């Protein structure tokens, strides 16, 4: 249900938004145990005694997780705390086996960073990152299929999470999405998470409040929990902003609630009030000593840092002479960027390759809603296709036909061009014959052209191409036609 509020009223207000993003780190084993983290296994087959919180068991920190968190910290120019400490966060829930979650309160591993975002062509904006800390995920409660009872699946229990908390620097849903996408791209670039929101490996809570423009004070905030797609984050924030402005305009007060977004109804509704909120009784985790992070460790991680988005973009612009917009599109997803680079390595045609990756390929991927890793045309075949354009074997137009067959039939471009006889006609005598035939068939237009109606030149080129079924080399057609007409 949409809320409608007068635009004039909306313009008087500004929203203040902070995001808490939970990123599941893609380690092989869990944060504090050796159990596997694979998604989608049979319930409770990937939970060991430690994940089950059995009496007497103890956590042992997975060193791989530390490295991933440090990578993230370095990529957002943050401080890496040494030592970093773990704490217990206490609450009862059936999918939390120990009755507490091992998390970080004081000295989180990452503190005080920032990222740049850009919003629809506007200039860049800096969003501060307050902290990023490690914690273990809970299991899942299954409420269906148990005849009024609840099932508990602890496969996910103990999976490492990095919770990234932003400063309340975000001023609109659009900025929130831009920031969220930026974090998504960072974790994908670092290869520390697949960032898959649908599978829950990236989850987002948004803290939203509104205030009159120009005001320095913060309004009462609400927390929208667990929104599972970029689009829903945007819709939920926009709905919540309007809801809050609507309430305040009516003279009502905002209560500090935790809110759930219902994507089916496109509305937010309070889940629990903070007044009844848990007191988590954090205290230092006595089973884990403070973790010392040596400078030598950080130096090691620095060496392993991949080229990040901004660096890649600059390089694309410099080396491939791409436009900024094209570079932005190509680097947004690391796997698309590397697909693109692989295509160039073979085709040596940056501009044409960029057009094909951003154009045809992206359109097909979007149409089938699949990831580049699932693309039905591999980079080698696309590069070959581009080569055939640049060496004049086929025209760009024919190439699109070839691409469609490549996509649907899984054939390589050379075979398709050969079998379908799509090779461009470059024999000038053959082209001359075609031209003569077309000129003969259109005497009226020919005389008009000769009388100075230059526009008809294009008409003849079109007719000639049509007669060749698109296979004639357009440049040659132009040249020979000009000669014939003595223009």
């Amino acid at each position, binding site marked *: 249900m949409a809320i409608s509020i007068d635009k004039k009223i909306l313009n008087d207000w500004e929203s203040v938004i902070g995001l808490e993003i939970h990123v599941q780190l893609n380690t092989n084993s869990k944060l504090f145990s050796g159990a596997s983290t694979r998604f989608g296994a049979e319930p409770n087959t990937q939970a060991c*005694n430690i994940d*089950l*919180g*059995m*009496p*007497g*068991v*103890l*956590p*042992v*920190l997975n060193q791989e997780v530390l490295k991933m968190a440090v990578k993230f910290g370095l990529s957002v120019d943050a401080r890496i705390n040494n030592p970093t400490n773990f704490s*217990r966060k*206490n609450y*009862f829930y*059936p999918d939390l*086996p*120990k*009755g*507490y979650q091992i998390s970080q309160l004081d000295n989180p591993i990452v503190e005080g960073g920032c990222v740049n975002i850009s919003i629809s062509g506007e200039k860049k904006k800096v969003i501060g990152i307050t902290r990023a800390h490690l914690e273990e995920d809970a299991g899942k409660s299954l409420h269906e299929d148990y005849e009024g009872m*609840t099932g*508990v699946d602890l496969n996910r229990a103990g999976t490492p999470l990095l919770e990234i908390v932003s400063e309340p620097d975000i001023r609109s849903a659009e900025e929130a999405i831009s920031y969220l996408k930026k974090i998504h791209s960072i974790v994908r670039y670092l290869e520390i998470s697949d960032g898959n929101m649908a599978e829950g490996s990236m989850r987002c809570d948004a803290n939203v409040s509104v205030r009159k423009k120009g005001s320095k004070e913060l309004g009462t905030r609400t927390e929208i929990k667990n929104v599972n797609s970029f689009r829903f984050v945007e819709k939920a924030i926009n709905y919540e902003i309007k809801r809050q402005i609507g309430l305040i305009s009516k003279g009502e007060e905002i209560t500090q609630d935790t809110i759930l977004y219902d994507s089916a109804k496109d509305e937010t509704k309070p889940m629990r009030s903070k007044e009844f909120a848990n*007191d988590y*009784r*954090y*205290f230092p985790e*006595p*089973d*884990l*000593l403070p973790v010392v992070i040596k400078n030598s460790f950080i130096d090691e991680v620095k060496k392993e840092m991949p080229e990040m988005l901004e660096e890649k973009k600059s390089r694309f612009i410099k080396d491939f002479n791409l436009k900024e917009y094209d570079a932005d599109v190509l680097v947004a997803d690391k796997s698309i960027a590397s697909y693109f680079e692989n295509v160039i390595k073979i085709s040596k045609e940056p501009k044409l390759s960029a057009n094909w990756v951003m154009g045809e390929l992206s359109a097909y991927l979007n149409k089938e809603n699949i990831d580049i890793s699932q693309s039905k045309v591999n980079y080698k075949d696309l590069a070959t296709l581009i080569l055939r354009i640049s060496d004049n074997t086929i025209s760009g137009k024919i190439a699109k036909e070839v691409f469609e067959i490549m996509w649907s039939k899984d054939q390589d471009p050379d075979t398709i061009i050969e079998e379908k006889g799509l090779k461009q006609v470059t024999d000038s005598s053959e082209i001359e014959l075609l031209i003569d035939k077309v000129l003969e068939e259109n005497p009226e237009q020919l005389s008009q052209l000769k009388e100075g109606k230059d526009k008809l030149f294009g008409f003849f080129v079109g007719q000639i191409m049509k007669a060749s079924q698109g296979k004639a080399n357009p440049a040659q057609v132009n040249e020979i036609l000009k000669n014939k007409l003595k223009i």
Partner: protein
Amino acid sequence: MSELYKLSIKEKLKGLTDKTFSSLDLTSSYFERIKEFDSTLNSYITLTKDLALEKAKKSDQRYNSNENLPLDGVPIAHKDIFCTKDTLTTCGSKMLNNFVPPYSSTVVEKLDQAGLIMLGKTNMDEFAMGSSNETSFYGGVKNPWNKECVPGGSSGGSAACVAAGLASSATATDTGGSIRQPAALCGLTGIKPTYGRVSRYGMIAFASSLDQGGVLSKSSEDAAYILNYMSGKDSKDSTCLDVEVPNFLNSLEDKLDGTKIGIPKQFLSRNLPNYIEKNMEETKRELEKLGAEFYEVDLPNVELSLPIYYILAPAECSANLSRYDGVKFGYRCENPLNLDDLYLRTREEGFGDEVKRRILIGTYALSAGFYDAYYLKAQKCRKLVANDFKEAFKKVDLIFSPTTPDVAFRSGEKLDDPLEMYLQDIFTIPANLAGLPAISFPSGFHNELPIGMQLISNKLDESKLLNSCHQFQKITDFHKKWPSL
């Protein structure tokens, strides 16, 4: 062969090697004594007789083929706080009345690999919370020296069974004195090693930063045998120390000449019964005979120990015991109406009063608005106490005190007065707060009840503790006395 139980571990190993008796003889003789006396004492919760006899037979095969393990065939009892694979592990609680662990604690595994034979699991205060063994769901344990009296706690079952000759030695744990206080009350040698010397993996947690496994034995020498095989690094316990473990037997015969022993003046100012003071003086004189020198030392913050402990231990326990919620294992109430009802009734019915009291104290101390005043302040004070010891150990090698303020008390006597019960640990708690090793050893009797004295050493200096007690035990015979059952 009727008095095999009176042999030291050294003598048992000799007898087994010489084939004077077999492992099966030895283990069987213990089960005979258990059968005869434990129905009164109640020191065991679970007996693992079939398993033990099976193991004893295998031990004999190893002796016959000269492939025997270092402590092959020596019978031991495990405190029911150590998880034992496929054997009921209750932690003295109704909450775990049905809990059969799918894994063993590192301590049990290590001792198993050394060839020790588990006789059973010993009674204890519920979740190790208590100083009299009276909080156990499985009933109180009687002190073998006087069955009207308590054996101490929380390792009361371990202490009583060793004192009565129902096990050669027994594993135990010590959070605030749970090895040393029962050792004192039952006339045994009990050592709590340095925090981190012995793995806590599979040892059911009470207060993680204070809990430490150790052993109760008749003598310092017996304790050294067991501790040798309990100790050492464990990759499953992040707080377990990665340091070499010396062979504790090797230093037992070192002379005490020039050993500096400090007596904290804060301990002297306590109003102790005259027979305890007198015994302290006598023990001091014996140690002086061995070459030790005594000094007064100052531990200015040590008197804060009890309040510090009764904030930190309950705080940690309040979280450690949250897992007992009726969802995954252990006790679950009948027909819960909903989730809250499941939690409330499971924990209401499954825990005893003392455990509930400590969960409540701990939850309160960690609550918003109280955290700084209680938990945080207690943590800071804990550092002060640890620092006092650090300073003291610049001047002396060991610190000496009574283990308990008095000898064993009568069953029920302190049950309704938790504060009076908590004072039992006034001399033992400081070593837990500072993570230091400490030993209690028998030093005399009052009204036929044992008296125990305590020595505390610097970190990782268990050798010095065992050595000093062994030397003392060479010129005294308190540790050789047996109660008449």
